[in-house]
């Protein structure tokens, strides 16, 4: 096969996915394609910032930042030069729930490129000077964002929404906690989360199943069998109805808002996806876009989304408007939530939302990297490749009754937890 027609709906996307089992016990999903001389690999292990020990916030983020700073015989400089000589793309990232990796190589360099990747995964050096350098970069990033309204609003929101839970903690840590992280901490976290029962991996491009299986053995046979994870308890957005105002001398107020969402396993989840799309999804069609931006010119940016924390389904949104009109903007947003909850969407709105969600699914699969990321996400959610075909059928099956019920469940009385940064008129802290 010469093209990765993984999007070739309406036939089947799933049939283009091969499950490749390596002898080391790890299974990867592969879409084999030779249209472009590249190989893209994405992986994710559970255990992001939620695994950071108390007082060591930012550890998973520092680990992600130091894995490519020297490995095996190669110190940081030699490793970076080897990566550049082969023009490899290699990077790691930590979020609240997982640590993920991105690797992409020209297929003609694949053997050496996979070797370097294996070294980063299996034998990172965590040399003192390299760790210090990355620590300095993270600290500079934290300082750069110390008075950034969006960062501040996110922080204030999480603090109120997740009080006492791991999700309230900053993924990249605080200056003081980042300062306290040691080489030993890095090694310990790596040993706990880099385990073969804990990795989801997908590969797209110019590689066959047998070659991939042997590459996976080289990458992962040194890993532990089982991860040693601290369980993250399920939680829910708290303080709904509360207002948290953070004073900052800027002309525009930055708002973050949210309330509990619906879990992916919930029978109403796909109905909730359509409801969110109608409320604040898409680009130019949502109720929030029309009411806040188009009709009233209140904001450049306004949206809502169903957020994907592993242990907390959430409806989150944001807007930014000049201080003088902040209260008015929030009133419009809350009124839209209430209205949609009470009356539900119209049949026409639901029909349009379904058409968009179904039709645009293909656009998530038009580059190798995007395909690989989608395949990892689907594995993390516990689905089979058949989900690739199932997903649009689930959207299609949402009835107006389902959507009305989901709107009520999702939006309830329309109240929101709101964090606001700036000097917003008409919004005062409460709750």
């Amino acid at each position, binding site marked *: 096969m010469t093209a990765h027609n993984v999007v070739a709906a309406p036939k089947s996307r799933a049939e283009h996915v091969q499950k490749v089992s390596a002898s080391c016990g790890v299974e990867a999903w592969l879409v084999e394609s030779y249209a472009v001389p590249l190989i893209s690999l994405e992986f994710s292990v559970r255990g992001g910032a939620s695994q950071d020990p108390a007082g060591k916030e930012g550890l998973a983020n520092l680990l992600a930042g130091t894995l490519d700073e020297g490995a095996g015989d190669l110190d940081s*400089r030699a490793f970076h*030069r080897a990566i550049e000589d082969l023009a490899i793309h290699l990077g790691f990232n930590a979020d609240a729930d997982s640590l993920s990796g991105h690797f992409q190589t020209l297929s003609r360099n694949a053997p050496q490129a996979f070797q370097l990747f294996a070294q980063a995964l299996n034998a990172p050096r965590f040399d003192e*000077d390299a760790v210090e350098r990355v620590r*300095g*970069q993270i600290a500079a990033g934290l300082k750069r964002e110390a008075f950034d309204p969006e960062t501040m609003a996110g922080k204030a929101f999480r603090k109120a929404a997740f009080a006492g839970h791991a999700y309230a903690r900053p993924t990249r840590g605080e200056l003081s906690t980042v300062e306290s992280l040691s080489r030993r901490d890095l090694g310990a976290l790596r040993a706990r989360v880099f385990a073969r029962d804990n990795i989801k991996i997908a590969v797209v491009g110019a590689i066959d199943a047998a070659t991939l299986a042997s590459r996976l053995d080289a990458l992962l046979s040194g890993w532990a069998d089982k991860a040693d994870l601290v369980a993250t308890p399920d939680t829910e957005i708290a303080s709904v109805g509360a207002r948290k105002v953070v004073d900052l001398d800027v002309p*525009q107020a930055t708002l973050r808002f949210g309330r509990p969402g619906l879990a992916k396993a919930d029978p109403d989840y796909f109905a909730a996806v359509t409801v969110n799309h109608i409320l604040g999804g898409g680009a130019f*069609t949502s109720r929030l876009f029309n009411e806040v931006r188009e009709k009233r010119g209140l904001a450049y940016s306004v949206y809502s989304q169903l957020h994907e924390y592993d242990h907390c389904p959430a409806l989150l949104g944001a807007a930014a408007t000049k201080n003088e009109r902040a209260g008015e903007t929030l009133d419009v947003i809350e009124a839209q939530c209430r209205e949609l909850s009470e009356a539900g969407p119209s049949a026409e709105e639901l029909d349009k939302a379904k058409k968009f969600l179904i039709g*645009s699914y293909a*656009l998530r699969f*038009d580059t190798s990297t995007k395909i690989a990321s989608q395949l990892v996400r689907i594995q993390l959610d516990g689905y089979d490749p058949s989900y690739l075909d199932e997903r649009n059928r689930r959207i299609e099956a949402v009835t107006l009754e389902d959507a009305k019920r989901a709107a009520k469940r999702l939006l309830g009385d329309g109240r929101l937890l709101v964090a606001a940064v700036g000097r917003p008129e008409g919004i005062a802290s409460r709750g």
Partner: protein
Amino acid sequence: MESIAAISLTPNVAAPAPAPAAHAATAVSHFTLENGMEVVVIPDNRTPVVTHMVWYKNGAADDPLGKSGIAHFLEHLMFKGTKANPQGAFSNHIAELGGQENAFTSYDYTAYFQRIGKEHLATLMRFEADRMHNLVLTDEVVLPERDVVLEERRMRTDNDPSAQLDEAVQAALFSHHPYGTPIIGWKHEIETLSREDALDYYTRFYTPENAILIVAGDVEPHEVLALANETYGAIPARAEPPARRRPKEPPPRAERRVTLSDEKVEQPAHERLFTVPSYATAEPGEAEALEVLAHVLGGGPTSVLYETLVEEEKLAVSAGAYYLGSALDDSRLYVFSTPAEGVELETLDAAVDRVLARVAASEPGAEALQRAKTRLIADAVYAQDSQVALARWYGEALATGLSVKDVASWSDRIDAVTAQDVRKAARKWLDKKRSVTGFLLPVTNAAA
């Protein structure tokens, strides 16, 4: 670098990444319709999806004096509908077909794009052709949208000291040429932009002879050409393509420094911008040498700036450089760094001087040169994985005075750059007199 090469209509839909360079594709087709509109077709048969873009060869640098921001404001207003397709009709239709859309404005071009299942290409072309010549604007839609743009400006700039410094640095770098004026416009001028201003600008620039159609995806070139003839081809040619008359920047004679202190700054930062030729204005080989120079100097963790300032001297936590080669007129090369804890910006500034002097005095080593070229050329191969990236490369090139042939030969031209070319480019263009240095500082009590 947080420089804004282009700003888009909505924050949530990502604009395609700016093109680092260009791509050596072989199967690209290029046509010109009878009314003067150019058509480029880039085949990508892997998925039944198509990217459709219309680029207009005018941008913020073509804003009339006193009307800064009009190119960008009009970009917003292009979504307000026509007689046949009133406000929202186009966007709603795209959404129903499962498409995504956005638009962006840069100094030299304004572009509108959609991504959608390939069977809907003809529909997009009909709508897009309609708004090329039938836009309807009323104060009822223009005035709230002007407030939206002011909110956009507050979000991007007025809330952010580092963006304010960038504006001041650009303004100092281009004292006369409009690249010194922000794309979004100055606030006091945005506030006065009217429906008439927008329509004047629209009438002047939104014509087929000033437009480029780029289609990338699972399509046949002759089918695209036939559709283009039916839709865009039906729009009558108006005249000669509109001329872009821009004041020329005088030769820079004095090094300049711009400092911004703000109580919201916790982390100082250093930047230096040089005026340098673009691909469109450079002598043969010179822009390619600048591209390689910028990469050797500051492209990632193996660059001279990073290895020297971050790894060896430990004066900075990050450092890099970037050449903005896609521009119709003389452009800029950025050098940026973030000081390590406790390091004064003056100290870092002197260290940047030393690195730049060294690069101008000696040729890069063979390995460093090869490494930079390998990465630049490989990135053109990686781009083949993204039809949006390819479409953007061709659009940007053609809108800034380059040809399809220029794009196709780019990798070979990069490969031909010698160590001597790199040193010569550094010596000629990294002259401090051509530069503005920006200091971003916290507020200190001590008189500085």
